[in-house]
């Protein structure tokens, strides 16, 4: 479980898929970084990631960590976003046994975790099969 303060700081990424593009070499960072690991550049421009892509690889979690046990089995995939970078997230609304490398997916806004019945709800992105 991630803390509430950290989740709140990451709202631009978790809610709006905001990444940073290096002004010098155009490398895209998600989450954003302070220094470009390719050219050491320190100037970045905000960019919004494309919301569709293709499953490059995935794994099925059958023994889930605390907070996610009710969701098992669930798939976590590395997705190559269209003309952009790779992002890792859960894939939902699909039968995990039928998920395949190359499947088209898109980002959707979902609940990611909640602190029991009384705690805060953390929202973020997951992948779903593209319509």
């Amino acid at each position, binding site marked *: 479980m991630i803390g509430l303060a950290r989740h709140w700081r990451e*709202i631009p990424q978790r*809610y*709006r898929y905001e990444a940073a593009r290096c002004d010098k070499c155009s490398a895209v960072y998600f989450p954003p970084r302070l220094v470009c690991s390719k050219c050491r550049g320190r100037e970045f421009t905000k960019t919004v990631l494309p919301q569709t892509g293709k499953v490059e690889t995935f794994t099925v979690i059958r023994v889930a960590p605390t907070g996610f046990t*009710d*969701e098992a089995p669930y798939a976590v995939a590395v997705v190559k976003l269209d003309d952009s970078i790779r992002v890792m997230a859960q894939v*939902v*609304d699909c*039968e995990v046994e039928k998920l395949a490398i190359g499947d088209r997916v898109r980002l*959707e*806004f*979902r*609940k*990611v975790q909640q602190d029991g019945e009384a705690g805060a*709800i953390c*929202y973020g992105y*997951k992948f*779903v*099969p593209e*319509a």
Partner: protein
Amino acid sequence: MEVGIVGYGAYVPRHRIKVEEIAQVWGADAPTYKKGLRLEEKSVPSPDQDVITMSVEASRRALRRAGVDPFELGAIYIGSESHPYAVKPSGTVVAEAIGATPNLHCADLEFACKAGSEGMFIALSLVKAGEMKLALGIGADTSQGAPGDALEYSASAGAAAFIMGRERLVAACEHTFSFTTDTPDFWRREYQHYPRHGGRFTGEPAYFKHTLSCARELMKRAGLEPGDFKFAVFHQPNGKFPLTASEELGFTREQVQQGLLSPSIGNTYSGASPLGLTAILDVAKPGDRILMVSYGSGSGSDGFVWRVTERIEEVRSLAPQTWAQIKDRPVYVNYGTYAKFRGKILKAS
């Protein structure tokens, strides 16, 4: 000055449960619900979906059709009876997710199944008053019926979002009217998980009285008759009530068919007539008039007369259309999975 809808968006969860699946668990007679109430199946939100997630998706779709900068939205109103938090507005999360913060008004609304249409009215009125250029009204619910209760066959999930404005309209609002009384047909007290209904008050003195009174008075004030409308959409707690109401008002089956979603997805509560309106906008032609009348227990009905404009042709394919979403690879769940999804199973803590 004309005001109306600049962009609209719909969201329906992919999971479904069939009436038969619920009926066999409770030893109930499925045909009673299928024939009697015209219900086939209903949408089921997965455990990671709620009013906030569905509202975000519906709003993003509305923004795509509106083609406006979310930062220009002056207000966001979400109507629902299943806001995830008792205290902390759903609208704050949605506004943040769509990039509309921080310069806007926000509050959540509640009025059983008509909170969504009330949100639409407030958004529309603020724009009309010149307070703001654009405002977002949303109707969304993930409603629950008690296990074995008649409402369990219909209570479902969905969201519809409408961006109201003055320019580049897809549908202009020609008239509105609202009808409200104190009627104890349905309620849920604080801290209660499931709603209660005052059996004898359902139907005649509640849904029909308010829906018909609102529709009649609205048409009278607008100087319009059923024949002046291409489409009509009414609140749809099941598949039967809206058909009965529309017949009584003098509308034909053809006028209501496109917006009648409840047999396929159930009663989406605050999302119901707003979602029906999105399905109509998906096919309506410029110049078509649409009558919309919501109903919320407690009780009240909001009525709108919409007139579709030329711009509809440019925007409808910019986001997933409502019937296409409903028919797109539904995932059927059994009652056990449904009960788990909806938190109906008591677990060791």
